[in-house]
């Protein structure tokens, strides 16, 4: 059954491998996936450890429900100390890897050390082998996956890999699986590269016994019906995540030209409907694909229709590639978006980070802070599609002064570039945010400022607040499973009520990350999607474990607090612009200039923002500096951490 999946400890320096069961009391405290990984990271790393050194731990996991009869349990989680931010590194991706890992007998891998030469791990039906990856080094992400399958003689092998960006220690390199399933943000591919670990391959045929199989399947039908009947998922299944980019651009919530604007006008050629047309023209009418056990099918298949990469196959693009290769650099050409998306997938690099950092460099170039000497002759102005794509190559290959500088991430690059370059870097905790503009939406601004891995939309974003749901609906969602009778608001410009809404979402997102479920199956974009009340049934039928909705909330709160403890240990402080819960000054000082009339002229009020953070800290049980109070740690059973139970 799911509960007998093990944890493996792998030392790449010595070659030693040990395995252990996961104690049931830790399951009850953290479930699995991201929550248990956070516990392991805090317990197995020391304060100040070098993110690229052998002592950093790389954690790879599935969730508690991975590969059971539950719906959409495809998510693979990877965690380590981040080489980009120096704080928590964490990424979560879809595809098929985590279920294969579970069928191979494992839910969690803890990897330490550094191999003398390139290696990959092969996890197969309870056994783990370290194999040479000398022949794989230098290959792209898809070449690597096919080469591993060829070598092992099994087309069913699923692999997590790095591409050239990870090998070159680009600090925002991805871990990848499949064509485009990307473990982006915080540079987990760079950590793999630093360990000379090219890939982790898995193949499993070990059954997972389901505790109550008939009931599990019966209930799952109800769950699937709830998911597939929602408007947001039907739109996702037609247009993929680009539909979110389209909607966000429509009202003016899209970060454009490195935050100078909040809307990409006349963007018809890169709108989701146009990208869908290209996918249909090049890959036929059935061009939407899905991850393991998912019915939404939000991933488009396409071929690049023209240009130097014409005919190349890829999947996506997602919202983030539209941001990286359209709105941020000010480009409006679909082929540029599709090509850029293909390049980042093949190099294995974070599209979000690379798009942000190139657009930052474009603004610095237009302001004269850098010039052609630093760009090696490249005319790095906004709207220059060729320069944009050339910079992707240079960064991933660390080629030229600017390519090498930007490959170290924004904060380090700003120190090297100097002058006032840091003022224009749109980041939180050293990580660029989603290509979105939160100046008109204080609740979303609070979310990105306080998210545990840096500026991030996938940790606590109250995105449904933009639907202007009536208050009784908000009460139904945000008033459970923990009673709350304070203010709530779906007014986008409101500050009051948002701290609770962000706090609630933080726990909701953590819960699905512990279970291994995709966020499109919870209250991320759909108010009618399952949440705390629904999960106990799924957990019970599949694993036999009994939880109340309140207990799942408590697990999530606890896991979020462990991430906070890790960040505090590594230097997080409330108002630090590089390592704190703070926003770039442009959020407070420069009003928006485009978009719908209700968005134009908006900016974040500094005092009200401070009050929101105060209130958010109060809900989390933190003091005014963002440090957990002793009673909070005791309530969550964390007063003795790190306890090193496993």
């Amino acid at each position, binding site marked *: 059954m799911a509960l007998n999946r093990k944890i493996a400890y792998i030392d790449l320096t010595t070659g030693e491998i040990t395995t252990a069961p996961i104690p049931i009391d830790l399951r009850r405290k953290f479930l699995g996936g991201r929550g248990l990984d956070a516990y392991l990271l805090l317990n197995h790393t020391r304060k100040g450890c070098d993110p690229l050194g052998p002592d950093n731990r790389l954690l790879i996991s599935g969730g508690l429900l991975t590969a059971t009869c539950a719906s959409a349990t495809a998510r693979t989680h990877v965690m380590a100390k981040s080489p980009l931010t120096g704080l928590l590194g964490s990424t979560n991706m879809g595809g098929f890897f985590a279920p294969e890992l579970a069928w191979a007998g494992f839910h969690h891998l803890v990897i330490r050390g550094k191999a003398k030469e390139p290696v990959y791990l092969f996890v197969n039906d309870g056994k783990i082998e370290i194999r040479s990856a000398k022949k794989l080094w230098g290959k792209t992400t898809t070449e690597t996956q096919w080469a591993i399958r060829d070598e092992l003689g099994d087309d069913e092998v699923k692999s997590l890999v790095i591409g050239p960006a990870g090998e070159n220690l680009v600090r925002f390199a991805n871990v990848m699986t499949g064509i485009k399933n990307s473990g982006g943000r915080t540079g987990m591919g760079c950590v793999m590269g630093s360990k000379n670990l090219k890939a982790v391959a898995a193949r499993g045929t070990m059954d997972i016994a389901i505790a109550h199989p008939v*009931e599990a399947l019966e*209930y799952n039908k*109800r769950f699937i019906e*709830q998911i597939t*009947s*929602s*408007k947001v998922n*039907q*739109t996702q299944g*037609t*247009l993929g995540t680009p*539909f979110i980019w*389209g*909607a966000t*651009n*429509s*009202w*003016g919530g899209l970060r454009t030209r490195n935050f100078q604007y909040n*809307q990409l*006008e*006349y*963007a*018809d050629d890169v*709108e989701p*409907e146009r990208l869908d047309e290209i996918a249909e023209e090049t890959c036929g009418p059935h061009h939407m694909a899905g991850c393991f056990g998912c019915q939404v099918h939000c991933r488009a298949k396409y071929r690049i229709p023209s240009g130097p990469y014409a005919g190349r196959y890829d999947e996506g693009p997602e919202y983030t590639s539209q941001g990286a290769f359209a709105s941020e650099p000010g480009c409006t050409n679909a082929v540029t978006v599709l090509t850029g998306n293909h390049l980042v997938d093949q190099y294995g690099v974070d599209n979000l980070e690379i798009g942000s950092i190139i657009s930052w460099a474009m603004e610095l170039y237009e302001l004269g802070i850098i010039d052609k000497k630093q760009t090696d002759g490249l005319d790095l102005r906004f709207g220059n599609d060729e320069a944009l794509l050339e910079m992707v190559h240079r960064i991933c290959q660390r080629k030229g002064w600017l390519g090498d500088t930007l490959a170290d991430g924004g904060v380090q690059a700003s120190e090297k570039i100097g002058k006032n370059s840091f003022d224009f870097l749109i980041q939180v905790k050293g990580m660029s945010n989603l290509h979105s503009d939160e100046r*008109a939406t204080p609740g979303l601004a609070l979310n990105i400022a306080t998210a545990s891995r840096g500026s991030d939309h996938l940790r606590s974003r109250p995105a449904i607040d*933009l*639907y*202007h749901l009536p208050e009784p*609906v908000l009460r*139904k*969602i945000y008033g*459970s499973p923990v009673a709350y009778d304070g203010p709530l608001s779906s007014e*986008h*410009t409101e500050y009051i009520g948002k701290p609770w809404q962000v706090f609630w979402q933080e726990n909701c997102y953590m819960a699905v990350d512990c279970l291994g479920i995709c966020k499109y199956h919870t*209250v991320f974009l759909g*108010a*009618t*999607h*399952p*949440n705390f*009340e*629904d999960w*106990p*049934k799924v957990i*019970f039928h599949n694993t036999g474990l*009994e939880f109340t909705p309140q207990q799942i909330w408590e697990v999530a709160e606890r896991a979020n607090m462990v991430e906070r403890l890790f960040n505090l240990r590594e230097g997080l402080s409330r108002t630090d612009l590089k390592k704190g819960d703070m926003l770039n000054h442009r959020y407070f000082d420069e*009003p928006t*200039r*485009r*978009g*719908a*009339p*209700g*968005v*134009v*002229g908006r900016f974040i009020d500094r005092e009200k923002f401070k009050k929101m953070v105060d209130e958010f800290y109060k809900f989390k049980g933190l003091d005014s500096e963002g440090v957990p109070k002793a009673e909070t740690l005791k309530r969550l059973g964390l007063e003795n951490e790190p306890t090193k139970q496993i």
Partner: protein
Amino acid sequence: MAAEEAKLSTAEVLRETRTYGKFRCHNPSCMGRLEPKAGDKTVRCPGCGMEFRVHWIRPDFPRIRGPVWETNRKLAEEALKKMEDK
């Protein structure tokens, strides 16, 4: 667990609130319900004057593709001017 099973969760109850054939104006300070006629390519919000291009996911399922750019720019500039005049 059986008793809980029979009960609809909050998410399931909220399903009754879904509406098809309509969408909300993308101006967040308006959010008026708009109901384009079958096959309409654009729709104007009577509440705030925003004008949108319409995409049909299915014949009964419209969504906003994006704003009509000229109207969008005009309204944004008017809103900015009002703010500056204040």
